[in-house]
């Protein structure tokens, strides 16, 4: 019998009001479904003591052992290999689009919350940044229990704002995250592709491992509109009369080229890229994250 919480339809998650509960539902369902997975190779259990070696952080010295043995020992845990996870959520106006009721922004919030919760479970420090054409909210990465609530609340508060301009806020975020870690960018990447890559590269140059989740609605991917219509740009409010059947194939090609561009460029710059269809469950994003996390350590 399939796990009840696994592959939860994103639309179903919308009925859960608490973002924390959403995150827990997704992550625990995900973990329980993966407990036999070979990817699950880390632990937070005590590993060993080892003698202090010059250069070790003196804060890791177990002072109780020193009191008893008058020796410096450093206590090591498997789980102590934690890192900082920075969740960057695009809250530009274009993210407010959702053809099936579930907006990309909401989907991104679920994704960010789930990733944050998941990271917290691994004792990674979690930070959160929302941005559109500038940084809207910045929550630095910390690993305390209370901090998770802060992050989740920040995620929940995020609302669609202004126009997309990914390059500038990404550069700014790169400047502000001094500690290396994993930077997860959740965005529709609706900006000039070279400018987007420029911003992402700034993040990567700072020593971060960058994971890019491009969140797109199925309507954006397939452009399955039937009747001719006046299309209104969510960000600029510009209008354009479009007969879908005339432009569909060319639109799809342009979209495929755009996605291929990001895939190719991210791979070249050692960044992970994943296209997330908002009609699909969140598992794929979590897998991507896990895979990255495992590669790191």
């Amino acid at each position, binding site marked *: 019998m399939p796990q009840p919480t696994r592959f939860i339809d994103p639309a179903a998650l919308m009925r859960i009001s608490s973002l924390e509960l959403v995150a827990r539902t997704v992550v625990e369902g995900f973990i329980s479904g993966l407990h036999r997975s070979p990817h699950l190779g880390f632990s937070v259990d005590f590993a060993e003591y080892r003698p202090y070696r010059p250069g070790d952080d003196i804060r890791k010295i177990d002072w109780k052992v020193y009191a008893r043995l008058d020796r410096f020992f450093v206590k090591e845990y498997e789980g102590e290999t934690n890192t900082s996870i920075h969740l960057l959520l695009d809250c530009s106006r*274009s*993210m407010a*689009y959702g053809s099936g009721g579930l907006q*990309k922004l909401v989907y991104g919030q679920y994704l960010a919350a789930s990733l944050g919760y998941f990271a917290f479970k691994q004792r990674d420090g979690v930070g959160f940044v929302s941005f559109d054409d500038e940084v809207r909210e910045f929550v630095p990465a910390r690993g305390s229990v209370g901090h998770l609530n802060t992050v989740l609340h920040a995620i929940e508060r995020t609302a669609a704002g202004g126009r*997309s301009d990914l390059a500038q806020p990404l550069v700014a975020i790169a400047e502000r995250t001094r500690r290396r870690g994993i930077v997860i960018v959740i965005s*529709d990447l*609706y900006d000039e592709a070279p400018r987007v890559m420029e911003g992402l590269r700034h993040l990567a140059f700072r020593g971060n491992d960058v994971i890019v989740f491009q969140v797109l*609605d199925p309507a*954006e991917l397939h452009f399955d*509109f039937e*009747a*001719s*219509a*006046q*299309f*209104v*740009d*969510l*960000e*600029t409010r*510009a*209008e*354009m*009369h*479009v*007969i879908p*059947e*005339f*432009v*569909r*194939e*060319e*639109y799809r090609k*342009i*979209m495929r080229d*755009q996605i291929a561009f990001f895939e190719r460029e991210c791979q070249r710059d050692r960044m992970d890229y994943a296209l997330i269809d908002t009609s699909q469950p969140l598992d794929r994003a979590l897998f991507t994250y896990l895979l990255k996390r495992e590669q790191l350590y």
Partner: protein
Amino acid sequence: MSFVNPLFLLGALAAGIPILLHLIKRERALRIEFPTLMFLRRVSKKTIRYQKVRHLLLLLLRILSILFLVSAFLRPYRDIPRAATASGHVAAAHVVLLDNSLSMAYADRWDRARRAAEDVAAGMRPGDKIALLEFSDQTLVRLPLSDRSAAVVEDIRHAVQLTDRPTRYAQALKVAEKVALDAGTGRRVIHIICDFQKSGWAAEEQEFRLGSGIELERVDVGSDEFSNLTIGDVRVLEAAEGAEAGLRLKYSLVNFGNEDRRSVRIGLALDGRPAMERRTDIERGGVQAGEFQLPGLTAGAHQVVLEVEDTRLLRDNRYTMMLETRGRTQVFSVEDAASSPGTRSAGYFLSRALNIPVWSRYQLTGVPVARFDSSAIPQGALVIWNNASGGGAGVQKKLQDFVGAGGGLVVVVADGARAADFNRVFGSWLPVRVEPPSRDARSADRRGEEYALLTDLKLDHPIFRPFGEPHSGSFAAARFYRHARITLSEGAQALAHYDNGDPALVLAGRDKGKVLIFASSADDSANDLPLKAIFAPFWQQMLHYLDNVSEESHSVEIGSTISPRRYLLETALRQAKGNADLNQAVVVLDPSKRRVPVAAGSDTVMVDKAGFYEVRTANLNASIAVNTVPRESNLTHGNSEEMAAGWLSPGTRAEPVAAADERPTPEEQDRRQRMWRWLLLAALAFLVGEALLANQFILKPD
């Protein structure tokens, strides 16, 4: 441009429907919020433009189809009452009527006429049209109405030729009128270019008038001063009795015109060789008779040409004729021997009727029945069984063989007294019987004044055909006191009857031969026909029929229609070529030895050149002499002004183009309105195009 159904103009409003639909559809378009238009903007503008163009094209096709449909129902027509150009010039239709009859060959008339025709073509103005017609007694539309004046000039210079045909104005003007009327509206001008020859205006055409509104421009190339010689009224006579054997050729030399001519040479050529000539003087307007004594000609057909020397008009100088000579046909009258010396034989009147020195083709010889031997009769001879008695089986066989071989036989049965003899000799092989005399038969005694009359003649039969014309002889005066009562069987035909219904003359055939049975006597014993003037012609005709002689004419006139096969058939009969196969191809050559096309399925040819036509098959050859029409040689000049006035309708000259005449003919009206068909077709084409384009949008979007 006007419309037959102008109310349909309201239908043009329907053209707004597609536009309205397009606008409404556009206004009601959905508004869809979309994250970004940047990708849509990148979609090829060319594609979008193309699609827009296609949409506009679709809209255009719909509008056009509606407009054309409405236009078709409007039934537009051209309404150009006066084809006035911007300069005020009224477009005209010029119909050039060029006379190419024989008389136009006189002096320089033809050259002047052609120059005049060229001048008309050169004088054309923009919008004018011109047609070229040539006429004699036939009219040919050489170039129909068009604006190609250069083509008209070209035809005048190189294509139009003089003919030997006579002039007929009325039929030419009728054709020209029809061509002019085809021009529709505007001025219609007929340019008649001719010599206004008086003889071309026949009395029966006096009533002809051109339709009103047609102008007539005349170019008169004729003249009151002329002189033309021609030969006519040629007759062939046998030499007078006692003269040397031969023929006399009488002719008339006519001097049309107003100039005395001196020492005019007249020549006679026989079979292409000059035979004799003479010179004579002839006064203006005079007719002078002449005669050539022809030497004894060999039997057969001869080409004879009489030619007068006249350089001013060469085409009518020659008179041609075919002259056929042959020996007299032997006729044997088989009869009983005279009962006593000094009495007239039964063939007495026949010999008087047939053995005349002039005009008769026959030489009658009496043969007693006892000495009759058909094997001794030469080929081509005829036999008259003249109420002879006796005759056994041997005679019957001989006569039967004679007729079966193609011989001609006349059996005379005076009355029923000879019935037994007749039935014995002829009853077994001819489909006739003679009834024996009965008691109630009419009296044989002339004193009783009981007689029968010859009536009910078959006038369409060659024997009686010459007597069908008025004053050509009457049989009514002849009284038949006695006659034989003949009963006919199948195969016999009565050509004449007595007034009591009994057959008088019966035709019966046997193989190739023909037999005529005359139910009375050939002398005056049973009737008084021999005492009547018609006796000799009647017997001549009967023998002509048996001898296959037709009333040949020596020549025909231009414009006649001849049957080449008939000529060949007559030639074959005269030459005794009974086995001539006339089913084979017949070739007709004109005087210039060019082959005359014979229309498929037609057995006739119209001759239009003077001279000798030749008709040929593989084994037969006949010549036909063709002469110009004598009246065409009379160049008497008419008053062109008077003639033209006679042709024009009253008032036409005062008001050349009457408003009433602008009313088009039904054909013209139909032609003007024909545009609706094209409009309907165009509308359908647009609808088909719209359907195809629309289907492409639906089924195969880009």
